[in-house]
């Protein structure tokens, strides 16, 4: 089963501590070596992006930043045997924020990707 994990948090006013980035790299390496992590990357703030929308038959293009309270921070793509396994890897990822970035708050959404192996 494949899962897409999206990390969302309010736009931070300071850059993430280097210890956090180091710990994230280490966890990423571990998950890759475990054969679970297929792909991951950080995302620039939405100010660098754009939105294409369809409403009332009208196509519109708007430059970022988006109005949402939370920014999309990063994504990760996991191949695991169960949702619980994706939850466990994601919990480890979130714990790193708790341990290395005082006061940080945010959330990760875990979404299953369509595929042939969609057995319950």
């Amino acid at each position, binding site marked *: 089963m494949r899962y897409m994990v999206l990390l969302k948090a309010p736009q931070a006013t300071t850059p993430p501590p280097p210890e956090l980035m180091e710990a994230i790299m280490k966890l990423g390496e571990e998950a*890759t*070596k*475990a*054969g*679970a992590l*297929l*792909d991951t990357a950080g995302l620039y703030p939405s100010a660098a992006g754009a939105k294409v929308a369809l409403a009332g038959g009208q196509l519109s293009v708007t430059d970022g930043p988006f109005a949402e309270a939370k920014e999309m921070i990063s994504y990760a*793509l996991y*191949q*695991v*045997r*169960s949702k*619980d*396994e994706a*939850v*466990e*890897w994601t*919990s480890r990822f979130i*714990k790193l924020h708790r341990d290395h970035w005082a006061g940080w708050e945010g959330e990760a959404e875990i979404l299953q990707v369509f*595929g*042939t*192996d969609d*057995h319950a």
Partner: protein
Amino acid sequence: MTATDPRRATHRAIEAVWRIESARLIAGLARLVRDVGLAEELAQDALVIALEQWPEAGVPDNPGAWLMATAKHRAIDVMRRQDRYARKLEEVGRDLEVQQRSAGPDLDAAIDDVIGDDLLRLVFTACHPVLTVDARVALTLRLLGGLTTGEIARAFLVSEPTVGQRIVRAKRTLTTKRVEFELPPPAELADRLSSVLGVVYLIFNEGYAATAGDDWMRPSLCEEALRLGRILAGLLPQEPEVHGLAALMEIQASRVRARTGPAGEPVLLLDQDRRRWDRLLIRRGLDALDRAEALGGMLGPYALQAAIAACHARALAPEDTNWERIAALYDVLRHVSPSPVVELNRAVAVGMAFGPAQGLAVVDGLTSEPALHDYPQLPAVRGDLLAKLGRLDEARGEFERAAALTRNARERGLFLARAAAP
């Protein structure tokens, strides 16, 4: 959105932790107690203790380290009670002391290295040539994949006691043959690695051969094999054939969604809807193939097969396929890893690259091959080439023969349809 019941959430977390940590746990313990069977029992004991304690105390912050510490305590308890393990206890005590003494800022890195080596030892032990191939497969899925005996049985369509017996016998063989929990000596590395890669590819093919209606554990063997292949690529990054096998499996797996039709019927490679191919797996496969190539491994049998699969993966439409390159790669492969099936595949490629008459000449060299006597693909390929040459009566006969030989009902349907309209 519903909040999850905490006790149930803990149980599910324990299962996930087990799945992630069990191989490393067993590998680390096996180095300490120098017995894979005992290591697995100790790891299971630690799991049972976690199931008792975590629902009350919560999941520890570093569950892997918790399980390892708990299992080590169990190891010491068990050995104290068993005289025959007195010598091992001494060794464990010594190892623990050494570990405590070396505690320092680099300990994490040191432990990571050791874990990598331990996992590799576990891989080579589970795939040891003293074991039968069936035993290697079962032990690999059990110790490295964290699968239960029941799951392995369902995946291979055999009974649970059969798999249980196989694993018990395998562990006993490792003990009686005095197989050390060690990495193979350099002189044996190539042969031992080829045994490991063979086991992983066998697991992959077992899953790939699964058909609609099979228990879902069967196709999930492909995922298990891919995962093992990715783990091996991390453990042995300098071995080109490890990347070759990973590339081959990633590219083959990229076609899983396209290779069966709505009714579960097989769809041949050239008839597949390529938009359904998994681009992420193709990209990963091509990257792995690049690594094999950069390491000078283009003559390895897995890298060669991956290179052939990559020719199809790179072609966005069937008519873009570089058949000359495929035919050339098969020509190398038949020297590196000769087999009648490789030669038959070469015939197909030659037929596509240089015309059906040339392909037929290759096939006709195979008709007296005993290994292909009952192989339905031989008349099927011959029939296809004859049809392209306009020799329709002969083609019809070949497809009828192919239909009579295959044991797969859906494939028979495919051959009979060709026989009716060659």
